[in-house]
């Protein structure tokens, strides 16, 4: 075998790659913020919410955690339109990511909430805090602090999983790679480059989340 590696296409297709990176970053930023928000709401419902809500949320979490993201994506993009709910590729991709991360982060955050001692709730109440204030300041923030590393890992996993959204023609980095591959027939080089970009994005995202953790929870950091 004599294969000549050729990365000459890289300059010509750089804008395509950059656009793909932009979409991937945009997907994960929106997905992470909304997904964690959804996860927090679900964690509240599962740990402290009304009784009828608990089994509903539990079913949602188990369903999402035990099916592949690809199928969730197909269900949202191909399945829902038959119920009259139509959306663009990017919206569908984002919705699937939010729903997916929501379920995983629900379990992670719930673990943090349940580690809160009972007395903390009572202490909050005795300081005349409303139940919502108690939840927010006394329960949620320390819980998030505890589970921040696990939550960060999950966000990175969802970012890597987002490579799949190219399958419904959302124009992310993998979509760009497939496009370049089909133009240049330089499959191996294209995928090596895009894999390395994903690796760089993952490392960057991890650093970013670690920095965010420092900013959000300064008390722990300074101790």
């Amino acid at each position, binding site marked *: *075998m004599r*294969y000549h590696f050729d990365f000459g296409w890289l300059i010509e297709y750089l804008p395509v790659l950059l656009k793909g990176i932009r979409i991937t970053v945009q997907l994960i930023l929106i997905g992470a913020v909304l997904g964690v928000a959804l996860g927090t709401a679900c964690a509240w419902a599962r740990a402290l919410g009304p009784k009828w809500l608990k089994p509903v949320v539990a079913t949602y979490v*188990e*369903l999402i*955690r*035990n*099916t*592949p*993201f*690809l*199928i*969730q994506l*197909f*269900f949202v993009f*191909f*399945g*829902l*339109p*038959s*119920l009259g709910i139509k959306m663009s590729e990017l919206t569908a991709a984002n919705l699937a990511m939010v729903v997916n991360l929501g379920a995983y982060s629900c379990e992670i955050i719930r673990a943090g909430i349940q580690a809160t001692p009972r007395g903390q709730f009572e202490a909050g109440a005795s300081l005349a805090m409303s139940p919502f204030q108690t939840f927010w300041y006394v329960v949620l923030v320390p819980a998030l602090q505890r589970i921040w590393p696990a939550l960060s890992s999950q966000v*990175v996993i969802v970012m*890597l*999983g*987002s*490579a*799949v959204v190219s*399958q419904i023609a959302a124009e992310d980095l*993998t979509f760009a*790679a497939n496009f370049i*591959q089909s133009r240049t027939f330089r*499959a*191996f080089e294209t*995928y*090596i480059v*895009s*894999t390395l970009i*994903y*690796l760089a994005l*993952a*490392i960057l995202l991890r650093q970013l989340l670690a920095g965010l953790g420092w900013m959000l929870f300064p008390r722990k950091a300074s101790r």
Partner: protein
Amino acid sequence: MTQFTFWDILRNLLLAARWTVLLSLVSFTGGGIVGAALLFLRIGSRRGIRLLSRGYIQLFQGTPLLMQLFLAFFGLGLFGIDVPAWLAACVALILWTAAFLAEIWRGCVESIAKGQWEASASLGMGYLQQMRYVILPQALKVAVPPTVGFSVQVVKGTALTSIIGFVELSKAGSIVTNATFQPFTVYGLVALIYFALCWPLSKSSQLLERKLNVAHRNH
């Protein structure tokens, strides 16, 4: 035009699910073997090898499985091998599973107290004897729940092989959808079949964790 009954759809999906199960078993077994080898390199005494295996693990954990599948599919072809989709799928999934299992098991081995190593060393045991008689029997108990839990990820990971053209449950779902134009029913069923495969695994992982609960008993 032929009409497809609900039973037709379900039967075709279930037939394809066999391949999902087979691929999961192959990946998990193969990944377990490679992962065990990787574990020994990762916690071994040679610094260079330790760093190398750490790099391997970070590379596979830090890149999308889909990209790894593409690279296996197109990369193996560079060596002049005609790569069928199933082979690329197996290779990529085994390497991916190995990276995760090695890291999970490393955590388990490192959770064993240092004193155990020192005690067994003071009995004149060599490295392999320490592993075989002292460390691994204890680490194995800690390792069972997360390992079973990870098998769920493997089953879900096999769905991606549909993208490089391996016909398993997901691919069958797409094919059946194209024939029947009932995406809601078909993908709903596909999701339920995956759920039926994965849920018992996740549940048993949780149960084992509670039953073995070794994390709190060990020290």
